[in-house]
């Protein structure tokens, strides 16, 4: 046989694997008898960590599809701390209030660097006060996917919680086999980690029979599986439907935003959209629905974080396709499970700047804001007191991708003005923000004079952003500037992973 190989012309261009040398032993037992043997399930998290070859100084990753109900991050970090690991980089798609126990692991040197979309609660407060020597890196969902895909962020071991997984690693955010298990819907952010991490450990409380179809994560991306009783608190992972706001101020903003989209010419048969999950931005869907019924038009696709409002419109036949990177409520998760054209997408497909992404096909996006400045820059990351309390999410990705980005916010929150001279932290640059809608007036970015014209023609009053800022200040008074120290505690990346701003330590002396 080897001799035959040598007679093949240009064999070097054809194959380097040599000649066939036998097919190996063939198994004859039934699929059922075979299942459960030779699989990827290990008896404990410790064993999986050892098998994955985790070492000090490496990068570990997590997803945030379990939101405030997540028990995976804390459970894994407790185990890694007990095993004596140090100097780890924690690259999470986002972190929430529930991750306050990380403070101790940072103090003990287990975690020395954090990459995330956002921070909240006690952990965020401590980091704002200078807990970490190395600044936290904040990326958008699209920026994170690009950084992982390009190798800028190299994940050594991904620890991914999954509400269902078979013994070979096909994992998903729900299970078609039962209706009682935990569901988180789409696992869009976890899919990017699974694809690019060197080693992938799935933590699941629900080991189902092969094949766990449909899956979010295919078995070839998974190395080890650990079965644990507790991956999270179902009530914190998701509950019911996100409710529509009853706050009249938010309803006024939402109605105005819907009118802006219509007047600007982006509400036509076959349009595309993304809604935020905040009070006012979510309520826009309600007014759009009414306008769509009146005009007898349909939406070609809705993108993003998906809520029950969007899936209800899909089931009514008003939205043809849903592209879901993250399901915000149980209704959305159930729709993903049962509706053929409610489709799960990964973070790269959603928003990576390295490819033509789904955000680039958006007609409009409705976005919320903590602060907007007179250059239309938007902050969704730091509070008016300078403390970190939010997440970038897909804000800059969708603002850049959509033909019309509409930022909705009350002009003041309590006494705090929303429209100000300079945002505390630039997350989304004014260059990609088109319209600001507040309860007390609309401002259009001077880059979009044609939009301002159309709104005026439709009888809407358009103010300058400076006028909105002056009005906020007349009501609330001019706030004293936040005092910061020189030390940088956070670095904010734009979606192309260039540095757009820094967050400094707050000065409480």
């Amino acid at each position: 046989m080897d001799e035959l190989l040598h007679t093949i012309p240009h064999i070097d261009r054809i194959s380097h694997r040599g000649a066939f040398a036998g097919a190996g032993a063939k198994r004859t037992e039934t699929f059922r008898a075979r299942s459960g043997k030779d699989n990827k399930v290990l008896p404990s998290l410790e064993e999986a960590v050892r098998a994955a070859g985790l070492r000090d100084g490496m990068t570990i990753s997590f997803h945030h599809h379990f939101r405030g109900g997540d028990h995976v991050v804390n459970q894994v970090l407790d185990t890694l701390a007990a095993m004596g690991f140090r100097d780890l980089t924690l690259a999470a798609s986002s972190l929430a209030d529930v991750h306050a126990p990380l403070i101790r692991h940072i103090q003990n040197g287990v975690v020395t660097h954090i990459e995330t979309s956002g921070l909240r609660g006690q952990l965020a407060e401590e980091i704002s006060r200078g807990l970490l020597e190395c600044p936290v890196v904040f990326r958008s969902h699209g920026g994170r996917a690009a950084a992982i895909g390009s190798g800028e962020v190299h994940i050594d071991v991904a620890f991914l919680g999954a509400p269902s997984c078979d013994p070979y690693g096909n994992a998903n955010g729900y299970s078609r086999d039962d209706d009682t298990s935990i569901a988180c819907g789409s696992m869009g952010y976890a899919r990017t980690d699974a694809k690019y991490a060197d080693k992938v450990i799935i933590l699941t409380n629900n080991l189902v029979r092969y094949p766990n179809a449909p899956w979010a994560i295919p078995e070839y991306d998974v190395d080890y599986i650990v079965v644990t009783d507790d991956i999270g608190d179902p009530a914190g992972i998701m509950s019911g439907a996100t409710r529509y706001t009853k706050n009249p101020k938010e309803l006024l903003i939402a109605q105005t935003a819907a009118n802006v989209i219509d007047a600007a010419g982006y509400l036509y048969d076959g349009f595309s959209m993304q809604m935020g999950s905040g009070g006012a931005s979510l309520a826009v869907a309600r007014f759009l629905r009414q306008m769509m019924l009146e005009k007898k038009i349909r939406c070609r696709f809705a993108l993003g974080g998906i809520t029950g409002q969007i899936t209800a419109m899909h089931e009514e036949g008003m939205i043809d396709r849903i592209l879901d990177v993250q399901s915000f409520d149980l209704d959305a998760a159930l729709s993903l499970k049962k509706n053929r054209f409610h489709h799960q997408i990964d973070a790269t497909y959603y928003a990576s700047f390295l490819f033509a992404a789904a955000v680039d096909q958006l007609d409009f996006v409705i976005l919320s804001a903590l602060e907007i400045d007179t250059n239309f820059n938007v902050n969704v990351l730091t509070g008016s007191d300078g403390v970190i309390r939010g997440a970038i999410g897909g804000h800059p990705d969708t603002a850049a991708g959509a033909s019309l980005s509409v930022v909705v916010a009350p002009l003041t929150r309590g006494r705090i003005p929303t429209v100000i001279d300079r945002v505390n932290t630039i997350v989304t640059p004014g260059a990609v923000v088109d319209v600001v809608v507040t309860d007390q007036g609309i401002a259009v970015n001077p880059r979009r004079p044609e939009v301002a014209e159309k709104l005026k023609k439709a009888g809407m009053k358009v103010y300058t952003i400076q006028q909105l800022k002056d009005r906020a200040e007349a009501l609330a008074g001019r706030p004293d500037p936040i005092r910061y120290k020189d030390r940088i505690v956070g670095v904010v990346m734009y979606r192309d992973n260039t540095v757009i701003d820094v967050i400094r330590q707050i000065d409480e002396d």
Partner: protein
Amino acid sequence: MDLKRTAVAGTMESSDIMVTVEPRESGGIVLELTSSVMKQYGRRIEQVIRETAAELGVENALICAVDKGALDCTVRARTGAALFRAAEQENGTWEVGR
């Protein structure tokens, strides 16, 4: 204005301020302020409370204020109301649109 008793005005609701006034013989105006917007508006709130006390001719008092993001007009109204009540005066001169 002569303060006769301890008096309160306002609530702990969002966008309100609760002002408690206690008569003092001496020591000027002693102000204990807590606010949900202390960093941004603490200075301004103190200024408005002190101005209001001065305008009503109150020289000595302990004023405790718990602010939940009240606007200047609210701070002024609640402080004034607490002082009038402390002075047991019913017929204060109320202004609108100041």
